């Protein structure tokens, strides 16, 4: 050694130009603005006697009196609650059973089932409802085939139980993922202990495993209940023929058929829905305990003794396979076929009715073509922007000394509990009140993009937080000790380590945004159409073929993007949806 370190002195690191606190405040304010912002004008609109853009309004509870006095509104609530309760029961029981089968038994092909079962939640929800209608709806392909030709009973999906079944098949993966996570982090020595105490495997399952799942079941049930209350596509597409109205479709119909535009009663109804959703979110937070929500590692996985199904191994697998075929594959195939035939009917073989005209419409009709273009732009830009922003906000929430950091996790999860239609109404009013900025947003696709981004932002947080929690805090402390400020440490140390989650978040957001529709129904204008909103509007007008083709476009984009994502980064297909 010629020099010892102490013969050298280095310049002290300079403070960065933008102080960390400024960046943290800016991030926090933006989160608060986009998440809380839209609800303020919504509440305000609900207590005025005329729309916000009309001068001279007075504060009044008239909108509430009006909507609370309408028996149809209460009837819609009744329908909604029955529907949501049924959906929850079916999805939670189904999801838990599949989770137990796939993680705790030697079911044939359980790994593959564990992946395939996730598809319904990732496929475009509106498109899947259309697929169900084409195949299982009144006059649908298989309905006609079974009832008219084979004289078999079929399920009537245009009733409340039927609608619940359709929605449950979409939301079942949430219950599956929650239970699967709980099962795989549960300490299997608890089960081993019961085994060595002399309990038979099946008894262990009922006395130990299932009781351990209780928190997970409650968690999944609350989330599924909240999400199904917000369902809009199902009541609009399936409920109309039997005149079954839900709260969401009640609000939608009242808004679109109102004699005076933008009635306050819709805002009042939306506020009530928001209150219900918020209460459910708070209930869920209570159930979960603040932190347990995201416990992602721990427990000893691996050498768990699997329950041996013996002769049930294959029949149960067959049953699960049939379920997947009928609820996922058949609707998608129905959509695909529908998009290529003039009419889909069991009376004439489809190949005699082939046509490419539905697909041609997608390129020839301005509204359809623009929908695809707009959706693609919105999904790419929105997914990139939201991922970047949420990454920053997650760092502020969990890796900074920012004063209000603890408010961020709740804020970022809040839109998950909020019905999309309400986010839509909220942004509608927010844009109306913000002058030139609002006008620019309303007249362009960016207004819809912002609403979609806010709606789906919780997913990005849910994907990123568990990964961040696994990156040891000493790594960024080491960066700070080495002289780098908060932002430089975040940029050069934490964010690079977060890369896999950032990528997974982008993929998930892209898929969710490109398939989203309900926040847009109050925001679309000619020129700013997006795929989902176009499908809804066109289907209600009776245009089935081109809508099926458009739904297939969504399905194809979704499947291709997910496949690419899974290939590059082995994202467990669903990212972190389970924490949702």
């Amino acid at each position, binding site marked *: *050694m010629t*020099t*010892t*370190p*102490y013969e*050298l*002195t*280095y*310049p*002290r*690191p*300079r*403070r960065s130009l933008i102080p960390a606190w400024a960046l943290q405040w800016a991030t926090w304010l933006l989160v608060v603005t986009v998440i809380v912002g839209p609800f303020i004008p919504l509440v305000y609109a609900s207590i005025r006697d005329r729309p916000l853009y009309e001068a001279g309004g007075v504060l009044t509870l008239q909108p509430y009196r009006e909507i609370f006095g309408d028996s149809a509104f209460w009837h819609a609530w009744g329908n909604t609650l029955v529907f949501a309760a049924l959906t929850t029961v079916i999805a939670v029981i189904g999801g838990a059973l599949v989770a137990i089968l796939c993680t705790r038994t030697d079911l044939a092909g359980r790994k593959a089932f564990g992946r395939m079962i996730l598809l319904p939640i990732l496929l475009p929800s509106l498109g899947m409802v259309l697929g169900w209608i084409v195949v299982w709806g009144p006059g649908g392909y298989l309905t006609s085939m079974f009832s008219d030709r084979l004289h078999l009973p079929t399920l009537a999906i245009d009733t409340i139980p039927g609608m619940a079944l359709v929605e449950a098949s979409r939301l079942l993966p949430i219950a599956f993922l929650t239970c699967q996570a709980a099962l795989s982090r549960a300490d299997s020595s608890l089960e081993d202990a019961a085994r060595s105490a002399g309990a038979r495997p099946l008894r262990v399952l009922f006395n130990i495993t299932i009781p351990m799942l209780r928190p997970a079941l409650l968690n999944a049930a609350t989330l599924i209940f909240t999400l199904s209350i917000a369902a809009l596509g199902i009541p609009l597409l399936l409920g109309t023929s039997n005149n079954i109205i839900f709260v969401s479709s009640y609000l939608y119909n009242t808004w679109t058929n109102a004699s005076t535009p933008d009635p306050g009663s819709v805002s009042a109804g939306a506020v009530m829905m928001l209150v219900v959703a918020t209460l459910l979110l708070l209930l869920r937070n209570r159930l979960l305990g603040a932190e347990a929500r995201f416990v992602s590692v721990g427990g000893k996985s691996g050498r768990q003794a699997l329950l041996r199904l013996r002769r049930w191994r294959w029949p149960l697998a067959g049953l699960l396979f049939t379920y997947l075929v009928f609820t996922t594959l058949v609707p998608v195939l129905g959509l695909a076929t529908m998009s290529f035939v003039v009419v889909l009917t069991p009376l004439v073989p489809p190949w005699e009715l082939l046509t490419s005209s539905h697909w041609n419409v997608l390129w020839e009709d301005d509204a359809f073509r623009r929908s695809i273009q707009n959706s693609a732009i919105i999904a790419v830009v929105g997914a990139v922007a939201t991922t970047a922003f949420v990454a920053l906000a997650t760092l502020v929430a969990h890796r900074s000394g920012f004063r209000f950091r603890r408010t961020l996790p709740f804020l970022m999860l809040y839109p998950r509990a909020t019905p999309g239609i309400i986010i839509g109404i909220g942004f509608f009013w927010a844009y109306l009140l913000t002058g030139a900025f609002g006008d620019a947003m309303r007249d362009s696709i960016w207004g819809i993009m912002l609403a979609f981004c806010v709606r789906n932002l919780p997913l990005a947080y849910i994907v990123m937080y568990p990964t961040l929690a696994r990156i*040891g805090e*000493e*790594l960024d*402390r*080491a*960066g*700070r*000790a*080495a*002289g*780098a*400020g*908060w932002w*430089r*440490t975040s940029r*050069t*140390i934490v964010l*690079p*380590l977060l890369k896999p989650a950032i990528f997974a978040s982008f993929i998930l957001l892209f898929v969710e945004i490109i398939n989203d529709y309900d926040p847009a129904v109050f925001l679309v204008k000619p020129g700013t159409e997006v795929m989902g909103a176009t499908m809804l509007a066109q289907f209600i007008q009776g245009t089935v073929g081109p809508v099926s083709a458009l739904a297939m476009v969504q399905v194809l984009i979704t499947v291709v993007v997910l496949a690419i994502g899974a290939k590059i980064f082995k994202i467990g297909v669903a990212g972190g949806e389970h924490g949702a």
Partner: protein
Amino acid sequence: MPEIHVQNLVKQFGEQRALDDVSFTVAEGELFTLLGPSGCGKSTTLMSIAGFQHPEAGRIAVGSETFFDAAGRVAVPAEQRNLGIVFQSYAVWPHMTVFENLAFPLKVRKLRKGAIRTRVLEVLELVEMTPYEKRYPHQLSGGQQQRVALARALVYSPSVLLLDEPFSNLDAKLRERARAWVKELQHRLGLTTIFVTHDQDEALSMSDRVAVMSAGEVQQIATPEEVYRRPANRFVAEFVGRVNLIQGVAARTAGGVVVDIAGSPLRLTVDTPNGASGPVTVAIRPEAVTLTPFEDTTVNGTNTWEADVGTVAFLGDHYEYEVSAGQIHLTVQSSRLVPGDRIRVHIPPGACAVVE
């Protein structure tokens, strides 16, 4: 090399007092150890010095520079403190090579490329890691990662070095080597160092001075020998090394302080610098007691008792005896085997420390 002044730190975590009036001064070039069980506040103290925790009260200064002063509302951000830290997990950035890890602090200080390269290679040589320059952390062993962490903490000539349980993730053999090596390096570079550990062997063998902490308070600050031989209180006596505790009532006599042992006719003469009287607890290290055969009457006089042998265990380099002289039970370490069921024990008055 500056001194480190820590004055009256108080830190509350909810109901619990994590730091309760913690004060000490670390001299230039000294290796100062914070020793205590987990949850005693040693890591909180270290992280307060580093700038990752902010106490509610107190003051921290390095040299003439005040890093933290609750009263004066001073809190220099961690990145401006210019301290070198080695974390328990090493915290070697996994997405950067060894070279990049070391270069990062210098890049932050805006050194030119050439200067960075020269300096990084120099420090890599210092920690004997030159051949691993291009490796990623996952390609290194635990001991090598630790050297990289140390090199990264030294590369920018920090004003002081903070070590947070740096050896706890190494296996026993490697740990001993690493201790000797770090101690040697610290001495050679003359680094003022604060070292946090829960391992008493580590603390005793490496430190110039030790602060023993418990429940957020400093129990004793002294050299390793003093802490061991003259523990300030019962906690220190029991935490640092093994100890026999004897309770009794002390009184001053012509021959020194004599303790009337509770529940026994025996008396214990104690050589204590500060004197003592009233009820006391006396601490005696197992290896300070000598055992002789019962027949050997040459050993007699002060603090020599007859005792029965309970159990004897062979522990490689010594024998461990459980003996009882009447009601008094003692654990004794003896380098040789003493024959017989009845023996004589001798406790040198100088080996008795009054701890309460």
